[in-house]
């Protein structure tokens, strides 16, 4: 179903008018209330009145993750403390955490876009949603929770972990929608099978999966294991949380909620704005958020935009699957490598488990890549020869994807670390100092 037909199926020209009206308002708010933006505008002599068309947005300086870190914890807040209703923060695994403060209205926007995602996932008011995103500072759990409440569906607030219980609830409560990270969805599917059950024993119809990068191969596996349609959701704490964009049942790109977020794609090196269909870094501007207005945030996520009406009837612009991050792009022996390429190679070997970790080292002068893969029951054999064969097959398949020789190691299941349900994919131990 389409949750908000007026906004999701709006005539694109009309939507541009709405976006411009909202952009002008948020620019004024940012300039007046956030010292960071005031300073940034003044530095280049930019005035609020200079923003007269959507193209004028390009005059506004970018906001980076480092800017937000420097503003830790509350420097970017545009409203008095009494208006803040909820606070979330990124995990801080790659540095100082970034904090987002929400007003009551901001929470309602978040609930609205999350409800739209549930609509895209064939949600109905009578449905139950098994929400296994972590509840806490991480935006995953609460984002879906707010949306489910607004939508009118029942939320089962499982949070992450305790797989045995998750499966029990999945069979007994008969939820129709599963929300978690794709790697956890895969894990649940495998665990279900291990317990001797299959898609016929559960009642899920769709899943909304995000918070980490995944591939089409992984989608197919999850869909088979759980008997569902697996949809990709995108969002980030700095902007609002999950739901900035979400796939409809067509599974052909994620519809960006354009009435709330204005997307641009830039070349991360030259910073010029790119055309439709060109891969580059996604830049997002929050058009309606008031607690912490964010202008032209460089997401570091690499994607491209597709305009035009979707088969589902929505007219919102779609963004393609994230294929990498400008900051997790690795240069190995001079070759650009993204973890998603390695994942694709790994999954092409049908027996390989999707749980993996990439270790890059430089023992002497040459880079070495080691892929640690958690072994699955299907992969295991009592013969060393067979295990070596599997390692060789995986290594060959990955080498084909990235044009570099890699070494594959099999490790015990569950031995690779996860943070907040997100898999830690890359460990770069090279010392460039």
């Amino acid at each position: 179903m389409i949750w908000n037909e007026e906004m999701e199926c709006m005539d694109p020209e009309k939507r541009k008018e709405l976006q411009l009206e909202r952009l002008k308002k948020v620019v004024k708010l940012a300039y007046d209330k956030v010292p960071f933006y005031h300073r940034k505008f003044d530095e280049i002599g930019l005035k609020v009145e200079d923003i007269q068309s959507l193209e004028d947005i390009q005059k506004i300086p970018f906001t980076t993750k480092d800017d937000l870190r420097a503003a830790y914890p509350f420097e970017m807040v545009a409203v008095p403390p009494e208006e803040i209703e909820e606070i979330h923060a990124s995990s801080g695994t790659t540095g100082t955490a970034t904090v987002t403060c929400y007003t009551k209205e901001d929470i309602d926007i978040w609930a609205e876009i999350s409800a739209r995602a549930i609509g895209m996932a064939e949600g109905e008011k009578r449905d139950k949603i098994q929400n296994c995103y972590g509840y806490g500072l991480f935006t995953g759990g609460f984002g879906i929770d707010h949306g489910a409440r607004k939508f009118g569906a029942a939320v089962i607030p499982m949070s992450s972990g305790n797989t045995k219980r998750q499966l029990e609830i999945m069979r007994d409560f008969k939820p129709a929608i599963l929300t978690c990270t794709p790697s956890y969805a895969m894990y649940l599917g495998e665990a279900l099978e291990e317990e001797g059950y299959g898609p016929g024993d559960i009642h899920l119809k769709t899943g909304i999966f995000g918070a980490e990068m995944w591939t089409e191969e992984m989608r197919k596996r999850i869909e088979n294991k759980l008997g569902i349609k697996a949809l990709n959701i995108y969002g980030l704490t700095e902007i609002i949380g999950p739901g900035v964009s979400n796939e409809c049942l067509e599974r052909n790109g994620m519809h960006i909620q354009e009435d709330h977020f204005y997307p641009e794609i830039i070349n991360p090196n030259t910073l010029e704005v790119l055309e439709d269909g060109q891969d580059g870094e996604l830049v997002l501007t929050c058009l309606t958020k008031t607690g912490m207005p964010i202008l032209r945030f460089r997401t570091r996520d690499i994607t491209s935009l597709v305009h035009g009406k979707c088969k589902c009837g929505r007219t919102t612009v779609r963004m393609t699957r994230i294929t990498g991050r400008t900051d997790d792009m690795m240069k190995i022996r001079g070759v650009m490598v993204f973890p998603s390429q390695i994942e694709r190679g790994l999954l092409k070997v049908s027996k390989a488990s999707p749980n993996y970790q990439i270790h890059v080292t430089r023992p002497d002068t040459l880079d070495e890549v080691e892929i640690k893969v958690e072994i699955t029951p299907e992969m295991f054999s009592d013969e060393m020869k067979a295990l070596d064969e599997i390692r060789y097959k995986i290594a060959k398949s990955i080498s084909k994807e990235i044009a570099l020789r890699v070494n594959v190691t099999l490790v015990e299941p569950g031995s690779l670390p996860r943070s907040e349900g997100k898999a830690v994919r890359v460990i770069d131990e090279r010392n460039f100092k």
Partner: protein
Amino acid sequence: MVVKQISVFIENTEGSLKKAINAISNEKINIRALSIADGAEFGILRLIVTDNEKTKKILKNNGFILRENEVIVIGIPDEPNGLNTLLDILEGEKINLEYVYAFANNKTDEAVVVIKVEDYKKAKKLLKSHNANLFDENDIANL
């Protein structure tokens, strides 16, 4: 005349083997025979135990990846050339060995050999025709 061996994936990290062995012995399961195939980063622990179902359950609960498969367990006279005679028989029919390990039987003078071959059925038939002393589950329990 079927003996099933349990193989366990063991990472070459501190305490990994001990964890598996402890889990089994805590449940008072007797390990009759054991061998380890070791690679650079991981190994395969192969076990002949008295209670396969229980062993599998315990290991799974402890997060181990395992596999159960049929092996040939055979008693050979504990004397020079005991093993050679067996190998000659298999070689004569071009049956390839995947791996072999042996242990001594406390109750008789026999040595006990565990072998894994490519062609299990053919090997079994051949050994029977040579009146080899093939062990079954009961024999394992009584060792």
